[in-house]
């Protein structure tokens, strides 16, 4: 598509068979090929009108309505003769021009002068406004633009340890969550939880953790810390019993009075179980 002239006639507005056409012949004979090119280049009736006016080096403010109308209509007629797709707006503009022309011919009563607008006024206003934005579009197109006139730049970052996102959690949130989930499930009743003191649960985890750290194999007595006192020992013992009951650990003893070993249940303890030689 050819870009129509931006300001005056200097630029060719069409290339016809390789020849630049800088202005249509004044007799309005335009080769059909050229006309098609021209029409494709117009953005609408205002654009075409603007072109017709500029072509004659005229100011928008001094539109010779009769002449411009005649030219405009000729273009339209040719377009129709060539059966070019013609937007309805072009016909509306033709009608508007014809109306302005007829109003211009009517004598204006002197006393009404103040109220009666020049019939061209509305057209001039629209042409000016259109011209303004036609120019603005060109200005925007001329702005330095990304990926045409400039590019954003980028540098790589060495592998970084991503800082862990520490989401704050309040203990109340935790309780609320627990309350909610318990409300949905009656698997846990509160008396059960209260009977199972948390310290036993905690110690169960601790025993399993100790086992894990020792390769799933630890001597029974190592799980007790005398410095914790009687209560501590009881809690540890209860937790070991609980774990046994849940089949989470096994106890092993090679012979009577030999040391008792605690092993993680199943696979983890296979090697250690073999070392002990027997399974209790």
């Amino acid at each position, binding site marked *: *598509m050819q*870009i129509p002239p931006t300001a005056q006639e200097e630029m060719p507005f069409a290339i016809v068979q390789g020849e630049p056409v800088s202005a249509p012949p004044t007799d309005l004979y335009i080769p059909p090929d050229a006309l098609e090119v021209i029409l494709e280049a117009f*953005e*609408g*009736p*205002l*654009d075409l009108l603007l072109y017709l006016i500029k072509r004659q080096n005229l*100011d*928008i*403010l001094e539109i010779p309505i009769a002449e411009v109308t005649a030219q405009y209509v000729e273009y339209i007629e040719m377009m129709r003769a060539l059966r070019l797709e013609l*937007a309805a*707006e072009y016909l509306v*503009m033709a009608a508007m021009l014809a109306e302005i022309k007829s109003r211009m011919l009517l004598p204006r009563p002197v006393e009404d*002068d*103040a109220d009666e*607008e*020049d019939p*061209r*006024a509305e057209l*001039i*206003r*629209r042409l*000016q*406004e*259109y*011209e*303004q*934005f*036609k*120019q*603005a*579009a*060109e*200005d*925007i*197109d*001329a*702005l*330095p*633009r*990304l*990926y*045409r*006139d*400039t*590019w*954003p*730049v*980028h*540098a*790589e*970052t060495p592998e970084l340890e991503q800082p862990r996102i520490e989401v704050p959690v309040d203990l109340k949130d935790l309780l609320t969550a627990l309350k909610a989930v318990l409300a949905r499930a009656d698997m846990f009743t509160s008396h059960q939880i209260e009977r199972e003191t948390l310290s036993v649960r905690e110690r169960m985890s601790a025993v399993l953790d100790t086992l894990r750290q020792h390769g799933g194999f630890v001597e029974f007595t190592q799980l007790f810390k005398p410095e914790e006192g009687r209560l501590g020992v009881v809690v540890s013992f209860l937790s070991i019993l609980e774990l046994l009951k849940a089949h989470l650990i096994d106890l092993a003893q090679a012979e009577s009075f030999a040391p008792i070993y605690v092993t993680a249940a199943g696979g983890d303890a296979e090697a250690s179980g073999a070392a002990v030689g027997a399974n209790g």
Partner: protein
Amino acid sequence: MDQTRLMAILEAAITAADKPLSLDRLQRLFEDEAEPPARPDIVAALNAIAAACEAPERGIELKQVASGWRFQVKEAVAPAISRLWEEKPQKYSRALLETLALIAYRQPITRGDIEQVRGVAVSSHIIKTLMERDWIQVVGHREVPGRPALYATTKTFLDYFNLKSLDELPSLKALADLDAIHPELGLEEEKTPDRQDAERGDTGDEKSS
């Protein structure tokens, strides 16, 4: 923190980020510092970096656009490196550019308003393209029958066209004063440029200091 290190961190952050970084965002980089730099320190460091880029052996410049600061290729060097990319930069049709211009200068604006000025229908394709590029957005609806969408430009649009704010758009060509030349025309209607100025005054809130 001394300016030397501040400059190094800012340069690294802005080049490593994949979007322009706002001053707020930059300031947040230093939240955990014992002595975080004050905003004016950051601005001073940015200016120092920008000044250093002006040296002729530098090929990039530090630029403030609508959504923040970014490094970009200097225009003087752009032609020399454009062959890095196989594809030619996209050309936009006049219809698209005129539609975009009307939205940029007259926002918020309906499709009907645009059609009135351009004198032709605005194709849905153009609006779709502009939306997909994230250059325009719907900011509301005019409360008239049909509730047509009101379009406005986005920060992405400003970023893309190297602008800090709508203020930086080229000024509209002044309309000839019809009354002065042809008083008999009686064109007392309000003048477009004034209205533009007033409207754009609202949006141009990100002036650089």
